[in-house]
């Protein structure tokens, strides 16, 4: 099986354009109820044979208007709503909102809380990337890695349940700190998990990453060039898969990320496989960060002093962004001095990442739609908010 890209067989050249052939295009409606659109995404595909000539993503089926809802909630209550954006990795959502609100309030987060935030966000990154890995396997047709990934993710969810009582919508990171402390038992369990996941990641590499069938399905598919990735505003592994070295954790370190030694995995060509493998490598880096953070966990308070139960930040505007599992999650927060945010805007990474789909799908095959869409790793809860 050769995985070399062959320009003469490139899908772009297969679109029938000769009018003498009397061919007709076919409109295929993919979603919102389709097994592989990862939620309620609808794609309007115009096909010429099996080759796509036009793709129109249609979103909004899951729009819940959280930005509006937050205008009538106190800052503490807003944290609860942030959980619902990217429900596969809710910790960074909590964190981004809290960072923005803390900027407005001017709170100083204690070091132990910062370290715990890092641990939880990185655990969440592993959990989220495991979901990606599993579902991407299904998209490509391999069912088994999905259940392996969920088996490992289950352990992370158990850790979260032990910690804060919830498995998906944590409401753990609060204004000025975190809600619960970890004890020796938790740390032991977490180390057990970290030791367990390392060989599993190698198994995924065998089952998926370096499986020749997987390689021919994802290498040289869905290419996004460096310039194109930046111009479309991609972020997270999608941007780094194209070789752009931009990670908020390195660019604007928050929560003391500058203390931890980790690498930012980069792809080379911006293909589906590069984006996929960036995530796999990020899991390895996350394991590293968590181990380091647990090793030198500072002691002390969990919550900053002097934050009111119902905070009223002084009027002003703040922008905070974090490297969420799916990219650069930015929160723009405006306070008018009241108890509720006057205006909150989410720069949702999935929403921005998804927009590139309409460009890169053209000329691909139907089977590649799934490969490309899956590699962008969207969560419709965050796309639609």
């Amino acid at each position, binding site marked *: 099986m050769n995985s070399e890209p062959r320009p003469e067989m490139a899908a772009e050249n297969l679109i029938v354009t000769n009018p003498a052939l009397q061919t007709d295009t076919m409109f295929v409606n993919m979603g919102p109820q389709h097994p592989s659109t990862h939620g309620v995404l609808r794609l309007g595909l115009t096909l010429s044979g099996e080759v796509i000539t036009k793709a129109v993503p249609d*979103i*909004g089926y899951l*729009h819940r*208007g959280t*930005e*509006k809802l937050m*205008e*009538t*909630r*106190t800052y503490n*209550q807003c944290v609860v709503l942030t959980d619902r954006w990217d429900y596969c990795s809710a910790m960074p959502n909590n964190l981004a909102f809290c960072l923005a609100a803390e*900027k*407005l309030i001017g709170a100083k987060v204690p070091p132990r809380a910062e370290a715990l935030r890092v641990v939880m966000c990185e655990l969440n990154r592993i959990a989220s990337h495991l979901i990606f890995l599993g579902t991407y396997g299904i998209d490509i047709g391999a069912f088994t890695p999905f259940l392996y990934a969920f088996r490992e993710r289950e352990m992370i969810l158990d850790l979260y349940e032990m910690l804060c009582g919830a498995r998906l919508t944590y409401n753990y990171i609060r204004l000025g700190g975190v809600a619960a402390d970890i004890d020796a038992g938790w740390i032991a369990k977490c180390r057990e998990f970290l030791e367990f996941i390392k060989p599993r990641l190698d198994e995924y590499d065998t089952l998926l990453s370096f499986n020749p069938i997987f390689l021919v399905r994802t290498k040289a598919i869905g290419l996004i060039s460096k*310039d*194109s990735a*930046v*111009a*479309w*505003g991609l972020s997270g592994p999608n941007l780094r898969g194209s070789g*752009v*070295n*931009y990670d908020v954790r390195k*660019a*604007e370190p928050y929560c003391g990320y500058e203390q931890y030694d980790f690498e930012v995995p980069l792809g080379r060509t911006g293909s589906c496989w590069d984006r996929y493998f960036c995530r796999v490598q990020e899991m390895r880096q996350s394991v590293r960060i968590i181990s380091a953070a647990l090793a030198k966990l500072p002691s002390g308070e969990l919550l900053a002093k002097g934050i009111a139960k119902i905070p*009223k930040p002084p*009027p*002003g*505007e*703040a*922008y905070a962004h974090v490297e969420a599992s799916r990219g*650069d999650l*930015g929160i*723009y927060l*405006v*306070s*008018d*001095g*009241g*108890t*509720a945010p*006057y*205006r909150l*805007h989410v*720069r949702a990474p999935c*929403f*921005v990442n*998804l*927009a*590139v789909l309409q*460009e890169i799908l053209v000329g691909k095959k139907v089977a590649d739609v799934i490969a490309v869409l899956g590699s962008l790793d969207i969560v419709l809860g965050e796309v*639609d*908010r």
Partner: protein
Amino acid sequence: MPLTKEDVIARLLARLPKAEAASVPVRDYPTVRLGAPEDLPAAARLLKGELGFEYLEMVTAVDWLGPVRQEGFVSSRNPHPFLAQAPAPPVTPVAGPGISYHPILDMLWSFGNLRENLKVFLRLAVPRDRPEVPTLTGLFPAADWQEREAFDLLGIRFTGHPNLIKILTPDFLTGHPLRKDYVHQKDPYDE
């Protein structure tokens, strides 16, 4: 020689005579207030071309009309034994002290320079009744959906946008939900 925040503001102000440094900046970031919508393409070209801000991060706006109105909120339809009306939304926003509301939409763009790790915010006040702003889709493809979102939720018309249609809210919904005077109208899915 690395670019600094001050450089960026200075270069922008030098090119755009009507612009000024924003009086209320986005905390910790350089913020420039544009004088007129016509300045925007020039500013964007300057940012993208000469200053290397190739990354359009955010397009949004703030409606400074005043605290949100709560009429029309959908309350729970679960039958309640003791109350005729289910409990209302928990917090009624009140006007903060010392802040003046005025009927404008305050646009906000955020550009990033990934090489220098810099970010710059552009602001622009547009009137609520005729919010027209030139589009940036030609320069930044990322503006496509973000502008559509701002159009859908805040009703800003981006002149020159190739496909300015609703993106998040359903087709039957009229009005722009993130405007402060938006009142929920009954729709078939309320029940």
